[in-house]
């Protein structure tokens, strides 16, 4: 479904160039859960951004169902991201001034009738275990776990093929982390393709494949539970 071929990426820094990714090869099949682990600053988020069409690699191709996404125009790539990709972030990235419900419908805000979107959003929020009384609330008034569940609902609003999650449990306590992991497992069972970047091995182990990113190189990780 998604294949990354020979991906390299480096950044300019004061002392020269920092090579973050070196000739990365990765293939993710439909319905697979792939976890990418690695120490801080190893380039996990960079890899996620490249895979989701947000950041141009210096070299290499990212293909989604045989379409090289970096050969698409900016506009086409945005549309592709909206329709095929869902994002979940460590810091939730909810708009502070929109209600919970409005945050969820935000990705398709300009594309679909609002009442249909709201209906769908409510269903998703129920699915995520968010109480209806919180729908009109501002994100600031929610707990961390609630915020992340709202963020997952937003990621799912367009019914994407792939869910990219960048440290989704990094800001959560143990209980909320477990809750989110359960949700991911449900989504995985329902057939969602998942790419999860995490430090947390307890999250990573639910994946079909775990990759470790060290010194810019990606390698299959051995998992001991």
């Amino acid at each position, binding site marked *: 479904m998604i294949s990354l071929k020979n991906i390299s990426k480096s950044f300019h820094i004061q002392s020269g160039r920092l090579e973050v990714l070196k000739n990365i090869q990765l293939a993710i099949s439909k319905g697979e859960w792939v976890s990418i682990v690695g120490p801080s600053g190893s380039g996990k988020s960079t890899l996620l951004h490249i895979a*989701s069409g*947000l950041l141009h690699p210096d070299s290499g191709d990212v293909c989604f169902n045989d379409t090289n996404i970096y050969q698409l125009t*900016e*506009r086409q790539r*945005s*549309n*592709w*991201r*909206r*329709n095929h*990709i869902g*994002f979940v*972030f460590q810091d939730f*990235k909810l*708009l*502070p*001034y*929109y*209600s*919970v419900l*409005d945050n969820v419908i*935000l*990705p398709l805000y*300009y594309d679909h009738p609002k009442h249909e979107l709201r209906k769908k959003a409510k269903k998703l929020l129920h699915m995520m275990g968010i109480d209806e009384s919180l729908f*009109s*609330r*501002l994100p*600031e*008034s929610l707990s961390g776990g609630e915020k992340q569940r709202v963020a997952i609902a*937003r990621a799912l609003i*367009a019914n994407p093929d792939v869910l990219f999650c960048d440290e989704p449990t990094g800001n959560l306590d143990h209980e909320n982390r477990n809750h989110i992991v359960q949700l991911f497992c449900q989504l995985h069972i329902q057939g969602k393709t998942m790419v999860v970047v995490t430090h947390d091995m307890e999250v990573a182990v639910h994946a079909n494949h775990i990759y470790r990113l060290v010194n810019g190189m990606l390698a299959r990780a051995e998992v001991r539970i």
Partner: protein
Amino acid sequence: MISITWKRLYSRKWISITTLLAFISIYTLIPFGWDKSKTATTTIQKSIEQYGRGSYDLLVRPPSSRTTIERALHMVEENYIGDSKGGISISEWKKIKEDPDVEIAAPVASLGYFRGKKVSIEFPVLNRPTRFTYQFYTSDGRKKYPLNKEKSIVYFERPHPGMIQYITNNREQQLFSSSMSVLMPENYYLLVAIDPDSEGKLTRIDFSALKKKTNNPILQDILKSYGNPPVVKVLQNRDLHIPLYLKLTVDQLDVKLPDYLTMLGLRESQWMMEASPEKIDAALSTLQKAPIQSSQTMEINLSHFQKPFDGSALALSDQFVPMLSERFVADHNTSVYYVASKLQYEHVQSVPTVNIVHHGEPPSYKKIEKKGVSMQESQDIPFLIEQVGTFSQNTSSRNRLAASPLGIYGEMKAIAEDGTILTPTTHPGSFIPSPASGVTTLDAAELIKGKKPIDAIRIKIAGITNYNEAAREKIKKVATKLLKMGYEVDVVAGSSFKEMTLRVEGIGNVKESWTTLGVAQTLTETWNGFYILTTILLILFAGFWLVVRFIFEQNTLARENELLSIIGWEKEKIRWRNILEQYMLTSIALIVSLFFLYQWDATPSMYAVAVLLWIFTLAAVALLWMRREKTRKRIHAYKQLASIFYYKQLIIPMMFVLCLALTLLAIHIAALGDAWQRSSTTSMGNYINDRTNFFRLFVAIVVFYLNTISLSEGVASLFNERKQEFVMYRMIGWTKGKIVKFLFMETFAWSAWASLAGAVISGTILCMLNVSMKWICIGIGIAVLMVAITLGSMIGSRLVQLSE
């Protein structure tokens, strides 16, 4: 503390530099803008003090002498007195003159249109028989008008000096055999009576010749033969240009004198003009059929030689060039004159229109009435005109900015639509008011017009050197006194020329300079008001902008404050750190600004303004950072305009800045444009505009620059605060177009309200300032456009940065 504050400033160096530049702009440009505005106003005041006073201060006229058009337009017709009927006696004038507040009281009485003695132009004696066909013309600048019927002289030969054989159909004058001289046509010129002493003081022209006795022997003979009528002594204006042309056709004929002597029944020794008129007419008729050997037609300009009351005798050379001649024929019949009614204007409220009263050549725009008695009709003539000297206007001392209506010596410029300069004709009914062609005494005025001959008195107030507020008060005091005496009084000091468009039948649209009263006062008030307004707006703007800037900074620091609080910093310490940072920035900005001001030779008041602004900044920083922050947080989302309400702490100050920026720009543009346009209608205003354009342009640029930096700073702060939000939009798949659309809608929502408020505030202020609706619309329109462009370009550039 200083070290940690400095480190923060250094680590955010681009933000610090930008803020520093903004403060430097405020501390330098506001003093500069204010100073330039002040300089412009001072220049205006000085110009008005220097040039606002004409040659006199008050124009006093008889009761009810103000015309309808003057009342309607608050103007005084230029040189209108040519048509007045008097109304003030010499004793009344003397009473006004004796007032200690009056330095000069110069009376003027229009007597009508008079003719001086007519003299001749002599045709040349050529080798061959020649027919001279001639006609005199005058001109109004556009068209030539004949002054007599075409006449002819046929010259045959000169058998000996003193005998020229010629015949002519001109029987209206005395003819002589020694020369072929024809009298110039009758022309009429405005004669005005003055008091030589006061007029001399007012105009610095020497009129003392009017007091001298005449000793012209020819005149004495004429006076004796007419029973010694009074003599009206006249000083002639040397500066006049009187349009007079001679159209001359010269035909060389193949004729023989003996044949025509025979035809006339004369002997060889007899002069041809001794024949009977019938025979002369028959001979002239025959001559019409005589073969012409050669012919030429020419137009000879006699304008340079023409003088109103004591004409120049001329002779044409063999080459038909005019020159002065000592031999001439003269006609002393000067006791007939004309009085003309005033011009009758119609549609005075729209375009004043003047119609022809009598269609003729040239047409007459006034009703003409013949007065006096001709010498040829009676021995009992009322007076005789005698020129006793000349005068010339002293042009070097003339103030061309301030208008003095009844500047009776100046030729008024009137321009037709096609650009032709119109000139007064020699006809009393001329549309163009003619200047005084000659002056005489008040005694002569009493003789001609009766007991109340004076039409106006021009008063110069004593003890005034400059046209300032004190002078205005003194002038007003004397004016009130004269008004109580029943006269029509106009305060002429501070008036200026304004170009008027008139519609004149037979000519079309004509532009004339009329005297607009109270121009200096209006100019002073307009520009003083503009200066006060600019100062208030600049101060308001600076104050508001500084406060808004600190609110932005407070918002930026909120997260850092929270963090410092978490790690154990006391609230007072956090506050002190924040205040110290702003103090350091503003103090550096002040030092740099003072250096710049020094480099630009700033005045002490400019330094003072900069320091006061800095002190205000310190106070604003202290007050803003001391205030308690609201801790109450909202739980539920806003249903409408959620993002605007959420960021209200940033957007409301931004709206204030936008509203104030638009108000400042709109008021500045509209008030400047309106003041400039109002000023430019008069010559004094134009002069002031020319002298102050640079300063005003500078202030306008300062205003625009301050607006731009304040708006760009506001947008930058708003975007920095929401940077993550825009990144998120991209991540969830919004295209650039959608982000732009979203931002546009949001920005439009708050900026439209701010702009509307700015437009309403500026419109109200401008209405209260009596600025014309045209300039209010232009000002607000340009301000909205400029603000929209600035805001649009700022948001656009920020979006480009974000998408990168």
